[in-house]
């Protein structure tokens, strides 16, 4: 080891500051979070349309795919980075998976038994709000993380 403790302490402080700054830069904005929520709600709606076997399935799939690519592009342009998918927290990720699967399954089952209706809007809004809040929490975990020293 060719460094003295004072230098090591200063280096650790610099590294911690750089990690925090990077996490802050990569943190998503409210627009990204809302857009993310809408995309997940769109996935849920796709399952409903599939369950109801409507012709709207293909056009909505295209719109959703474009929206997801747009979301990724804007995020990268805005932050100059891309956070690892599990950069935030495993717990948030697991809850997110449960919410998405439950929402898609509910939509599919309701659509195949009752057909399309107002319930779809309620499920979509609930899914969008929940997932937007979860992705916000994931970003908060990233910036709250106590990194180096």
């Amino acid at each position, binding site marked *: 080891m060719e*460094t003295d*403790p004072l230098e*090591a302490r200063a*280096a650790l402080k610099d590294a911690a500051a*750089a990690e925090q700054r*990077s996490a802050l830069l990569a943190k998503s904005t409210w627009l990204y979070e809302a857009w993310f929520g809408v995309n997940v709600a769109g996935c849920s709606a796709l399952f409903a349309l599939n369950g109801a076997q409507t012709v709207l399935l293909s056009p909505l799939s295209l719109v959703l795919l474009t929206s997801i690519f747009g979301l990724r592009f804007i995020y990268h342009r805005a932050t100059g980075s891309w956070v690892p998918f599990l*950069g935030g927290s495993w717990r948030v990720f697991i809850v997110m998976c449960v919410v998405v699967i439950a929402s898609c399954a509910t939509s599919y089952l309701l659509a195949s038994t009752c057909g399309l209706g107002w319930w779809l809007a309620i499920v979509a809004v609930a899914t969008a709000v929940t997932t937007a809040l979860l992705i916000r929490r994931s970003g908060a975990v990233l910036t709250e993380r106590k990194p*180096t*020293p």
Partner: protein
Amino acid sequence: MTAPSFDEVIHNPVRLRVCAMLSVVNFGAFPVLRDELGVSDSVLSKHLAALEAVGYVKLEKATSAGRLRTSVALTRKGRNAYAGHVAALKQIVAGESANRLG
């Protein structure tokens, strides 16, 4: 827990901050790194080349809207080396504290 391993390549202040910034993201854009570190294009390129030479970072160049955009990412080897270096620095600091108490 990563084993402490002091790394001369990473220990340079600019390279340490590059690794620290990249450690929390999948990749970072070259201009963002340059602006955050407050160095010129050529200085950052030189440090990235040093990190790339030992396989710690991976540079990806892509043309988007007619402009060349460079993204930088830490490799697995780079992440391990950074974690080991940070552990080594902590060990040095902890050793000093123990000496002071002892």
